[in-house]
């Protein structure tokens, strides 16, 4: 994947952007101090809540109440908090992490494969019903969550699938936005001339897709994958209604469950602020890392998606 994407980092749109970047270098002397200050203040607004979360993860519940939020307590308790988070309720947190990785991994990889195949077909083939099917897929973005979740729950419950991992993974396989993004991206980045040339050479349509088209689609695939990953990793509504047993919870439902105990400590429960906060920090890290690591791919991929909007 990396090799493919490096060989062809971006489609036409991004190449044009590169031209602009070169031109922009000559204008660097025009930096505006006022605008820079405004933008740094904006960055502070977006980062300070997370900084607070990070600092708070180093405190005991007692220190949370007795010390100022934006500075460390005398006792640095990050390690103790991590240990407590992972050992609370017989290591439920570790299980939730594995569940989340399973649900998000299976869901987003599956959604990416399905979206890539369908998006490419919608973009590069004219076939009876193609346009009609695509507009139905696009229109489905507007369907409210509950309109689907309630009947899906009843259907799964009839099939005995509720409270199993499949109940969360199967509905995640559908990403209408992914199909849309892929169609736009494929239309731009896979030239018809290459496909025709391959056909003249006698390549079958399957081989053309696997050996010619997929190469061009690299950044688009990464983009679709990342957005599907965020959607499934952060999903709360679907697992909330589908799952009852704590052993199947993903991180989102698990943390919300602990939070409910943290705010209403009843019947011998102790407040759990320290482990909810530490658990929140841990659950955020993988996605932030994925976005930072893959940023050049998704930024060029999104570019094409947005142009044709």
């Amino acid at each position, binding site marked *: 994947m990396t090799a493919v994407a490096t060989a062809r980092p971006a489609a036409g749109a991004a190449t044009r952007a590169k031209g602009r970047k070169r031109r922009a270098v000559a204008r660097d002397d025009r930096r505006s101090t006022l605008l820079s200050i405004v933008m740094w203040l904006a960055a502070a607004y977006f980062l300070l809540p997370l900084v607070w979360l990070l600092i708070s993860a180093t405190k005991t519940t007692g220190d949370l109440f007795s010390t100022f939020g934006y500075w460390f307590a005398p006792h640095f308790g990050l390690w103790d908090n991590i240990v407590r988070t992972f050992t609370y309720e017989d290591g439920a947190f570790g299980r939730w992490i594995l569940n989340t990785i399973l649900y998000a991994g299976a869901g987003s990889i599956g959604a990416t494969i399905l979206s890539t195949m369908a998006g490419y077909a919608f973009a590069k083939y004219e076939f009876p019903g193609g346009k009609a099917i695509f507009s139905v897929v696009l229109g489905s973005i507007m369907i409210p969550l509950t309109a689907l979740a309630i009947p899906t729950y009843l259907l799964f419950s009839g099939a005995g699938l509720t409270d199993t991992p499949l109940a969360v993974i199967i509905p995640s396989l559908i990403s209408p936005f992914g199909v849309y993004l892929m169609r736009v991206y494929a239309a731009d980045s896979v030239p018809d001339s290459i496909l025709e040339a391959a056909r003249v050479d006698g390549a079958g349509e399957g081989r053309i897709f696997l050996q010619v088209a997929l190469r061009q689609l690299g950044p688009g695939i990464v983009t679709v994958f990342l957005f599907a990953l965020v959607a499934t990793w952060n999903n709360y*509504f679907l697992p909330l209604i589908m799952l009852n047993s704590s052993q199947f919870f993903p991180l989102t439902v698990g943390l919300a469950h602990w939070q409910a105990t943290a705010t209403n400590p009843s019947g011998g429960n102790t407040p759990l602020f320290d482990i909810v906060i530490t658990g929140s920090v841990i659950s955020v890290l993988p996605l932030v890392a994925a976005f930072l690591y893959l940023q050049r791919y998704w930024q060029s991929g999104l570019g094409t998606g947005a142009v044709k909007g």
Partner: protein
Amino acid sequence: MTAAPALAAVRPPRRRRATPAKRRQWIAAYVLIIPFLVVFIAMLVVPLVYSGWLSLFTSQLIGGQQFAGLTNYVNAVTDPKFLSSVGRMGLFLLVQVPIMLALALFFALALDSNRVRGKRFIRLAIFVPYAVPSVVATLMWGYLYGKDFGPISQFFQAIGLGTPDLLSNQTIFGSLVNIVTWEFVGYNMIILYAALRTIPAELLDAAEVDGAGAWRTAWSVKIPAIRPAILLTVIFSIIGSFQLFNEPNLLHGVAPNVIGTSYTPNLYAFNVAFVNQDVNYAASLAFILGIVIMIVSYVVQLSTNRAERNR
């Protein structure tokens, strides 16, 4: 020449029939689409039809499911809880979406203008909240707002003012607007920024030759050029606003007396379905909500198209 009419009469049907090469491509296209389509039908079309079916029945203690026609819908459009939740989200839409998109557009233009120091870092900083699960974002802001150990109230106490109650009846709406804005400005900014990067250089050079300043270029050249991307963010924001669930649901745990079980339409439908166990009524609520979303999206699209034509 004389043969032409006869040929023309024969040809059209033959043309309509696909050549073998064309047919091979059709088959390939269907093979590529079918896996998606199967799951799409199973997970989207079937549940939706089933939901529509359910919404036409009522369940009674005696006699079970009973066909009720549009009774559920009539009840829904006269249900004050449902109407006020839809109205609240309409207001949310009018307040939050313009704020969020104006900020996203401003940030995107500022970063695109190359006049900001450290723009790579700032761009990531603004985008990072998108990677934070809404559950974590809401829990975190709930703590930040809170009186117990929230830094906001600590700050107000330190400078000698009373602690502001950010989770009261008067303030919860604003607090919710802030959370959702914090979460999604970055996502919209990236879409708009990506669109800005694709504006042809010639267009911007021409504006410069004409003597347009940075603000003028942004307003008269850049914003019109990325109109489709802006419309995309508007439509997605409308859909997202009406579907608000995670944030109010979690804040309900923090401030149960302020955010009721019918604060948003989705929250209400969820509670009707899974707490009151009335899936029939919940299905009709979800359907009406879907129709409202479609109408609003359609009206927005229509009015922007008209504005475009009038330019």
